[in-house]
């Protein structure tokens, strides 16, 4: 991030879901006794890359990420990176909350800085 090696690609509308690793550990342990099935263990703030990447840079005190086109990304970073940056859809943790008692924490870097990015009030 500090070297601006991780750019926003295209419109950066791909929606990422993050989660704290300690929350993952607790949810995974809870899954041992839960109903068989698929659980998305992700936090409550799925965010578009165009929001979370600048937010993460701000949190680190790094310069704002560069912005590049999809064509440029295809040449330099490969098609995976475009898929992530523009197509990812985020995930719902509803079932994990219901069945695993999953209670993800707010991510410091995302929640604080999102307030700046979205203009929300504390």
């Amino acid at each position, binding site marked *: 991030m500090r070297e601006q090696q991780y750019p926003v690609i295209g419109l950066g509308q791909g929606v990422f879901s993050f989660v704290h690793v300690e929350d*993952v550990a607790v949810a995974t342990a809870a899954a041992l006794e839960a109903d068989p099935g*698929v*659980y998305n263990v992700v936090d409550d703030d799925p965010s578009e890359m165009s929001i979370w990447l600048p937010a993460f840079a701000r949190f680190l005190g790094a310069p704002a990420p560069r912005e590049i086109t999809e064509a440029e990304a295809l040449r330099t970073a490969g098609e995976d990176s475009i898929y992530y940056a523009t197509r990812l859809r985020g995930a719902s943790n509803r079932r994990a909350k219901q069945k695993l008692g999953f209670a993800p924490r707010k991510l410091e870097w995302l929640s604080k800085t999102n307030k700046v990015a979205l203009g929300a009030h504390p």
Partner: protein
Amino acid sequence: MRVLVAGATGAIGRPLISALVASRREVIGITTTERGVQTLRDKGAEAFVADALDRNAIEAVIRKVRPEAVIDELTSLPKKYTHEEMRVAEERDRKLRLVGGRNVRMRLSLPAPSVTSCSPRDFSKRLGQDSPPRQNRWRRRRPLQSQAAFEPICRLRIVC
């Protein structure tokens, strides 16, 4: 519950081992290094040294441990996420997840996985290709005798 964890000293494995020990499970971790053994013991878990890619070694561990649940947290991602390192890691990581994952979920008499998760990188790779490996598909491909060899162990739960 006896829980066997593969990828026990990784980014998720380490806090997971602590969470499992804290919730009073009997926890056994697989690691490839002596340092990993020490990490696991310090956390209150048992440790076995085995390479997930070595089918015989994993089979030996499973026979010995007789786990009631297996948790697969195998990955081989680079320390730094530069394009170069990601490119190098990609094939290594893929192999560990697919081959290693298959080994640690070794054909016991298994119900469907209790939890299966796919990281987004799997989706992009597999668009229009293979669907993610599912336990029932995989079981059909295994030789029958190896299933029989593990019948007595237990109903296993797989979390990955």
